[in-house]
């Protein structure tokens, strides 16, 4: 009886035989040393560049044109903030005025209604006080 793994291993061996590695670079001691030297040079250059960048970032002198640009930006920002505040205060004032106007109109309407009631009461008072003028009294 054949082990089921035998077929598996045979197919693996066949796959390995049908996929040989493509011919590649020839590695020589000289090439290895060249690669190592190049790698070392690259690392040293990267370290130096990093160090230079860090030094420049830490010891960078203040730039006058940068300061002027920052001042311009700050003044522009403050101008924009002031104009926004003006717009906001105008809007608030208009809102308050509208509310006050509405409240006054409401109050005046209520007062007018009260006045009309008082006038009507005043007109009706003599009639109520004189029984002869009373409409309920038979003539």
């Amino acid at each position: 009886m054949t082990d089921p793994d035998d077929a598996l291993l045979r197919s693996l061996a066949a796959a390995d035989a049908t996929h040989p590695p493509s011919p590649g670079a020839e590695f020589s001691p000289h090439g290895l040393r060249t690669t190592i030297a190049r790698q070392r040079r690259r690392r040293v250059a990267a370290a130096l560049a990093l160090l230079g960048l860090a030094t420049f970032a830490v010891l960078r002198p203040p730039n006058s044109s940068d300061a002027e640009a920052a001042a311009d930006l700050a003044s522009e920002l403050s101008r924009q903030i002031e104009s926004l505040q003006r717009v906001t205060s105008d809007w608030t004032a208009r809102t308050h005025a509208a509310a006050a106007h509405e409240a006054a109109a409401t109050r005046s309407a209520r007062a007018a209604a009260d006045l009309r009631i008082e006038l009507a009461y005043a007109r009706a008072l003599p009639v109520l006080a004189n029984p002869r003028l009373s409409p309920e009294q038979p003539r």
Partner: protein
Amino acid sequence: MSCPPLLAAADDVRADASRAPTDVAQALCSQAPRLRRLVHRLLGWRAAADELDDVVQDVLLKAWNGRASFRGEASLATWLTAIALSTTASHARARARWRRLFGWFDREPAQPLPSTDNDASQRAAAAMQRLRHDDREVLVLRYLEQRAIPEIAELLGCTRPAVDARLSRARQRLRDLLGGTEEP
């Protein structure tokens, strides 16, 4: 410049202060074709020539830079094989990470394995390529490199029962893949 054949296996790079660096480099370079074949198998027979060259060069550079740590307890071939295994595993992880990050937009649907019986080797190759790297590693070492279980345990830095378990699991996954078309 061609490399001379490896001298006596363990004596080549052993911390021998009298040996010139060129001899050490020659001993390392003479292993390059074998390492190239091993890396080609470990990457599932699908790596391009440039990729293989890069990995083999990484292995040789690591061996050169760490030659002082070679104590001579194992042969040079075994020491280089261990370095090649770790380097190839790192390379495979980086490649998988790259594909996860940037391969989603050109992802192709999984192709079914060849179904006819007369291309068993193609089926086996496709199934090996779909295996996880860990599984492919033990299968390559055991069945293609013909290494003994204790040697594999030494190379992978694990115990023999662990190698047996990994081998059994890898065989089963390969059988499953050859039996169907599911993803590993």
